[in-house]
């Protein structure tokens, strides 16, 4: 197990460096000149030279990469061209809000997805199973923005149940939660897409659990149907969900970008989208780096948690 964790850590580190290299390359193929972008189009050659020298832009490219890594490790992701604030500040203001949005939607997706998956497995290849699978499959294939607008049309415009946009002044996590009538729709849109993944994964696992010897033994020794489902089927089907949780992070983030730009949710997705419109590369690449690193950490944690929870891996690989 220890050796496994060390090996995984090494791989994760290599991937983080890879992500840094990617953002670095993207930063350097951006059209135009960084100095001109910051100093303005009328900057004199002398001032550009001073700027390049100050920020190390006149050094060879590999040295610049080392400097970039050094800056990132010191929490310096550059300064936003448009907002004139450090990218780190902008991102760290928004991370807690995204934790609320992504956390709530994932939770909701799990609450809906796991029981659905088990139910489908129990009734598998029957009408209920096909109908549910078809529903999730269709929702999964429909674009996020369409779902968002249909929900707005139904629940905000037709029946005035929820709000379609956030009050722009809200910045704290508590404020977001207090504004629950605006929070519900983005959370719902995000979870709709995850439910399909979770429920069908649980379904596949549960079908295998149901067909396994330990379930037959449990039934044979007289355990009730319900107890077998809870104690054996559910537990064994939940384990792989951890991996899915770790891996589905990038897709949830991508969904969050669309949902946030529709619902005006003050998170990373909206920040990213606004900087994309203004060609504010430091913010875009800073956000990309943070999301990439978060993905790597997420799947690393998922793998380690999986290894720790599954006795076959915990004892098996020593």
């Amino acid at each position, binding site marked *: 197990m220890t050796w496994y964790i060390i090996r995984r850590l090494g791989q994760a580190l290599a*991937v983080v460096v890879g992500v840094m290299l990617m953002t670095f390359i993207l930063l350097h193929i951006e059209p135009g000149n960084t100095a001109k972008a910051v100093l303005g189009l009328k900057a004199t050659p002398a001032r550009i030279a001073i700027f390049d020298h100050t920020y190390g832009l006149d050094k060879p490219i590999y040295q610049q990469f080392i400097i970039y890594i050094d800056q990132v490790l010191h929490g310096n992701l550059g300064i936003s061209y448009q907002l004139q604030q450090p990218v780190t500040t902008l991102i760290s203001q928004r991370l807690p809000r995204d934790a609320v949005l992504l956390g709530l939607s994932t939770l909701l997706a799990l609450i809906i997805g796991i029981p659905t998956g088990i139910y489908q497995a129990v009734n598998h290849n029957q009408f209920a199973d096909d109908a549910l699978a078809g529903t999730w499959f269709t929702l999964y294939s*429909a674009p996020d923005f369409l779902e968002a607008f249909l929900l707005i049309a139904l629940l905000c415009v037709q029946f005035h149940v929820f709000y379609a946009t956030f009050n722009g002044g809200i910045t704290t996590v508590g404020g977001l939660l207090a504004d629950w009538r605006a929070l519900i729709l983005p959370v719902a849109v995000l979870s709709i897409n995850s439910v399909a993944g979770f429920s069908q*994964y649980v379904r*596949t696992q549960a079908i295998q659990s149901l067909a396994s010897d330990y379930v037959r033994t449990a039934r044979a020794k007289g355990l009730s149907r319900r107890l077998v489902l809870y104690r054996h089927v559910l537990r064994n089907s939940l*384990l792989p969900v951890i991996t899915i949780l770790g891996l589905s*992070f990038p897709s949830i983030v991508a969904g969050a970008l669309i949902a946030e730009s529709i619902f005006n949710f003050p998170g990373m997705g909206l920040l990213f989208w606004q900087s994309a419109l203004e060609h504010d590369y430091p913010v875009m690449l800073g956000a990309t780096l943070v999301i*990439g690193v978060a993905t790597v950490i997420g799947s690393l944690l998922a*793998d380690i948690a999986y290894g720790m929870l599954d006795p076959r891996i915990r004892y098996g*690989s020593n």
Partner: protein
Amino acid sequence: MAATSATSLEEAAEGGVAQGGRGPSGLTLRAFLRNRRTMSGVGIVVALCLFCFAGPLFYHANLVSVNLNLINEPPGPGHPLGTDEFGFDILARLMQGGQSSLELGFAVGILGTVLGLLYGAISGVIGGFGDAILMRIVDSLLAVPTLLLLIIVSSMFSLNLFVIIVILSVLSWPAVARLVRGQVLTLRTREFAQAATAMGASKRWILIKHMVPNTFGICVVTSAFGVADSIYALSVLSFLGIGPPPPFADWGTLLTNGVNNLFNGYWWQVYPPMITLILVVLAFRQIGDAMNDIASGGQTGRIYARRRRLGFLSVGTRFETQG
């Protein structure tokens, strides 16, 4: 590392699970033709292709000059599906938009799969340190959501259909590469590959003659998903307004226009592109899903979740072999 859960294609492809003799050979043309789900998917795709590419031969409408007398007309005689905000006939627009959606889908599905196939096969055949490096590159690309990279790149270049095809292909190959490489790792230990090595075949010969043909099954699966994903991605780009500029239209453009007019009550602008877009994505995912079931030994259970592992697999290498 012991495989602990289902012997699904991905996990097998990760390299750790013995294929138990069935391997990719289960994926034959016969299995494809006899499967109810692949054939229903193929039926939908063929119908949509006929609709988009053959339809304009029979159904003519003005798609060039704006006619303000005809804007936002509900379905009626002369315009079976009504007209949009420019006075264009929606049925004809649907055919035109579908052409670009489908062209892009097929191009990216094939191109991305070919790139991934070559990369993954080479990585698997050379093995060792080179393989580790090549795979960390794939992991890095998979760690960042495709949509973010797509937005960054599309804010740097001016887009047309060709550029988008190139960008989406470049972004979609890593997942394929990963699967193919896993498949190659398992194939390498099979008798026929060892026999070829024993008879003195070069690595390049084994790669071209034995590995690439044997990963064909995986490639069919991934290209089907690639088509669905790229059509979906193009519609999202169109929604965000960073797709190709106006004379260009895909189903996403039509849907976005419709959605923007949703609150005026012009429902006929929303539902037609919505139905075609969902149908085509659904059909390709159905084909890929069913093919994957065949490839993984007729296992029941649909792929939705397993394909998430496939599409967004980042750095989870639990089932990696020690080699």
